């Protein structure tokens, strides 16, 4: 239970990280997140199976392509809607649906679309057999978090990210272009989304319906943790991961998703900013 709760928590964190980064910097709630996730998986599968490219190269190409698409979404659509939050949500949601339904109409249905496991087999952890792919996911999750920490704290672009995230107008006054930073945040968020897809999707098959589930899960994690808080996202991921396993073990597996979504509603009621969110904290105090 401890082991699988931890693994599930890491999977949630990976799924939500891209969404959180984008929102944290640009304040764009990217509802195309699920669409980009499946698109990344589908592109990797296509390059690997249909074009016969090596796995690593297929994954890199998918990450770059979807990263470019994320930037394009910002440059073509979102730049005109900056500040209109509802319009941003509707637009990105529409983009997500277009991506997913296009993939479906192009034939992405059925059970044959599957990315192979990186390493086959399983090992025992505290007496519990765990698939090696799941261990890889945990390692990748930790590595990605460390890389992101180093990026935002020790690179010029990362510091610009933090500047825009903290106060956009002040950042502008010191020569940081918020539009460029937001474009980059959407692009990087999309890339992280595909990285998570490449590691998580081999556990099952690639399905369009997963795109909608991924968006809901990312939203649940971000709302519980605090939309713009990376620490919050990590904490919320493990909370949901463990709640799910505990629910499945001691209550009923049919309530696993209900409990996760109910937690989101509960947090919205008692602390609308999320556990570590700050965006509405002052309003809440008032």
């Amino acid at each position, binding site marked *: *239970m401890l082991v699988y709760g931890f693994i599930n928590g890491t999977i949630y964190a990976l799924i939500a990280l891209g969404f959180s980064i984008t929102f944290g910097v640009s304040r764009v709630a990217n509802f195309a997140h699920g669409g980009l996730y499946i698109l990344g998986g589908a592109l990797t599968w296509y390059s690997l199976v249909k074009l016969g490219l090596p796995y690593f190269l297929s994954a890199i190409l998918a990450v770059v392509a979807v990263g470019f698409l994320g930037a394009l979404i910002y440059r073509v659509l979102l730049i005109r809607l900056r500040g209109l939050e509802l319009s941003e949500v509707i637009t990105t949601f529409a983009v997500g649906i277009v991506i997913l339904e296009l993939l479906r109409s192009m034939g992405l249905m059925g059970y044959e679309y599957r990315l192979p496991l990186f390493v086959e087999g399983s090992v025992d952890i505290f007496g*519990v057999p765990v*698939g090696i792919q799941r261990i890889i996911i945990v390692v990748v999750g930790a590595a990605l978090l460390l890389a992101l920490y180093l990026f935002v704290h020790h690179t010029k672009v990362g510091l610009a990210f933090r500047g825009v995230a903290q106060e956009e107008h002040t950042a502008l006054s010191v020569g940081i272009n918020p539009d460029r930073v937001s474009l980059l945040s959407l692009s990087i968020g999309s890339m992280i989304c595909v990285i998570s897809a490449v590691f998580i999707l081999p556990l099952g*098959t690639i399905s369009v319906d*997963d795109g909608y589930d991924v968006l809901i899960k990312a939203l649940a994690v971000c709302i519980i943790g605090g939309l713009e808080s990376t620490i919050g996202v990590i904490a919320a991921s493990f909370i949901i991961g463990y709640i799910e*396993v505990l629910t499945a073990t001691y209550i009923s597996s*049919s309530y696993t998703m209900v409990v996760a979504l109910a937690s989101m509603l509960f947090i919205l009621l008692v602390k609308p900013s999320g556990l570590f969110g700050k965006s509405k904290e002052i309003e809440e105090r008032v």
Partner: protein
Amino acid sequence: MSTFFIRITVFVLAVFLLVPAMSNAASPAKGEPIIIGMPSSLKSLEASEALKAIKLAAEEINAKGGVKVGNAVRLLKVEEMETRDMEPGVPISDALLAIEKLFLEKKPHAVVLGPSRSEVLLAAMDLYAQYKMVSINVAMTPKFIEKYTQNPEKYKYCFRMGDARYVVGYLTKVMEKLKQDFGFTKVYIVVQDVLWSTAIGDGMKGWFEKNKWEVKGYDKYPTGASDFSSTMMKAKQSGAQVIVPIFDMHNSGILVQQWKEMKVPAIMAGFISPLMGSKAWTTFGDKIEGIINVVFQAGNIPLKKYEPSTKFYEAYKKRWGEQQSGHMPSEAYDSVYLLVQAIERAGSLDPDKLVKELEKTDFVGSIGRIKFKDHQFIFGDDPKTSAIAVAYQWKKGGRRVPVFPNSIAEERIDKPSSMK
């Protein structure tokens, strides 16, 4: 010269006008086509393959000259309508609107397959009654019979080729075989939390308890769940020898992967959609070796001991490529043939006459011999006398080997490697 040219022109025109007229005179006149409506969730794998099977049947019948309706011969035309009823969040009312749109715009003479989701079929029965639309459906809910028998006169236009109860019956026989061959008596049930699969799960649980099996656990997972480790751990700790999974969601492939990774010493025997088709071995590799899966109708898997199933399977493969779903294509294909036979016997497209003829159906199809009782097809163990399902086991090298019923079994059941 000009007179010669005019004569040649007149001759050519005469040839062009007369030849088609003569050829028409040689074959019976073709009237308006008979429209077969197919309202279903076309983006689901099962319905999309069923549509191909329906088109295949229509093409075969048309190639043989068409359907004899009284003195006229008419061709078949298939009109599909997307109901989206298998997609998450689509309300029943939306699916019903799509069905009604098909009736009003395409004016079908009969419907085959119908909606996939049980709740939608139950609601659509009133629509079929209202429009006097003859329909041969496949959705699996046991409540179809309940609703039909409450008012047979009203719902007489509805027929059905499928029922979750028959799947339960089949699975119980597979369990008896496992008990007989290996002495297994401890079971763990895990199902998808939707109407049809919980109906099977509940039915199985009741049967196990009545037949002195120990039910070590019964878990239900919501559609979209992607971690089944708690079930696998509980199954392992409880000493379950058989795991009965009932799933048609794509993530159920993860269940199988975790069963293998966690080395659960139990045989898995049930229904898992992603493992149904021949390509599952390519997708999942030897992780699925030893798993027993139930194909709801013969024909969706070729059977060496029942030729019509192989004939359909091969015809489908030649026309559309290998099918991947475990239910719908073969019964949809047979539906068209038995509908056409009923039309020819009735000599009319009148729905009331068609109903009477369909009730008399006795057809040797790809799923076995088809007869109706209370507008529900009769199911059994021998394709020569009734429709059958097929339990097969995945064996080394990616072979799908039929193991039950005995009338079509090709090999014995093997224990999976985790139990050896």
